[in-house]
């Protein structure tokens, strides 16, 4: 049995018909073509698929698309208006070398946006705690922490 859902993604309204077992991560990638949301583990551990669900960070691999009916989703594609106007957090990741391969980056950005909103002046400890749910296999995290600090300065 399929369900018709109405949801908002990055400010745009969509109506789609989905099977209940379709994960929100697959829905975003395969149905809407928003492949910025990455899929690493599909069991909640790696954080690559993190999106914002009604403004709060959440795993899109642990949510069914049908549950997003009536809700507002933000993905990494919703951050910048175009490539010359990056979000200050994206700009900081660029400037502070907060990424190498970039696989983990969308999930980290979507975790840090609500974090910085709630903690505009975070300590390094708080940043590291907030990052604990996102695995990065390249950077060793130091540059990610630096990028978040830089972003906090830019966004204050």
């Amino acid at each position, binding site marked *: 049995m399929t369900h018709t859902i109405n949801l908002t993604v990055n400010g745009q309204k969509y109506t789609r018909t989905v*099977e209940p077992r379709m994960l929100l991560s697959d829905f975003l990638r395969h149905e809407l073509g928003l492949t910025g949301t990455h899929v690493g583990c599909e*069991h909640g551990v790696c954080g690559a698929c993190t999106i914002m669900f009604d403004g709060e960070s959440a795993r899109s691999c642990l949510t069914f698309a049908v549950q997003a009916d009536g809700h507002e989703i933000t993905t990494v594609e919703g951050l910048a208006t175009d490539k010359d106007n990056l979000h200050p957090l994206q700009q900081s990741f660029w400037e502070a070398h907060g990424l190498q391969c970039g696989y983990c980056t969308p999930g980290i950005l979507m975790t840090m946006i609500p974090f910085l909103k709630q903690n505009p002046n975070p300590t390094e400890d708080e940043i590291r705690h907030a990052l604990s749910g996102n695995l990065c296999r390249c950077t060793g995290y130091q540059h990610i922490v630096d990028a978040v600090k830089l972003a906090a300065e830019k966004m204050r």
Partner: protein
Amino acid sequence: MKPAPFEYHSPSSIEEILTLKSQYGDDAKFLAGGQSLVPAMNFRIVQPSVLIDLNRVSDLSFIREDGNVIRVGSMARERHLEFDASIEKRTPLLHEAVPSIAHPQIRNRGTIGGSIVNADPAAELPVLMIALNARLKAKNKSAERWLDAKDFFAGMFTTALESDEALVEIELPFAEPRTGWSFMEVAPRSGDYAMMGVATSVTLDENGKCKSAKLVYLNAGDGPVDAVEAAQSLVGEMLNDTLIESAALHASEKEITPFGNIHASAEFQRHLAKTLTMKTLKIAAERATKEN
């Protein structure tokens, strides 16, 4: 990794979810935060044929004070427990422990009811329910009953709930006067399931002697482990280092039964239990004295 097909229902009232559950019984599972159920479905470890989503039942997500207890709806998110002012003031042990549950993104979705019913021996909330003397309300289509937390957990991932029942409410008594608390765990990485953890609470009488104590452990057996003998050994006494050490030794050697895993041998888990018990008891005793 994709879940097997299932039929999906998302009603908005408690009545409707219970009617559906009585209709489908064990074939149906409730979907709360999905932070334990969906990974298991993605792996196809569980393949429920029906999911009853609780996320649209607004009557299940309250946190409110009522006389000398806090009432929490089973769909209250772990994130809401973390920032709730009543919980911070009335049940400071719970307030202290919640940030140790998983990562912020998981706590945004994960619920108190889901974690309790999941009954993972390594989870924090089942341990806290026993440490706080919580009562849990189970409900089916036609009746409801209250269970003490200590009677709710029935072993590894198993509870006293019947197949037609939902957990709907959690009742947390306010901490008594002169109560001190401490929660500590050791995990490989912040947010991971811990290798060992303990929720400790001590209440003193007017003379500063221990009136009651609780020591409850996670990842120390096939459910939350309530070290009643070690706790009892403190009652009626002035808490000092010698007494604390012997209680810690008794709990860690005689009362817990850790299995060991890839992160920690059983022996190391016992070592952690002893160290954490001593640390938390000292902090709890100090806080109880200050609460005087």
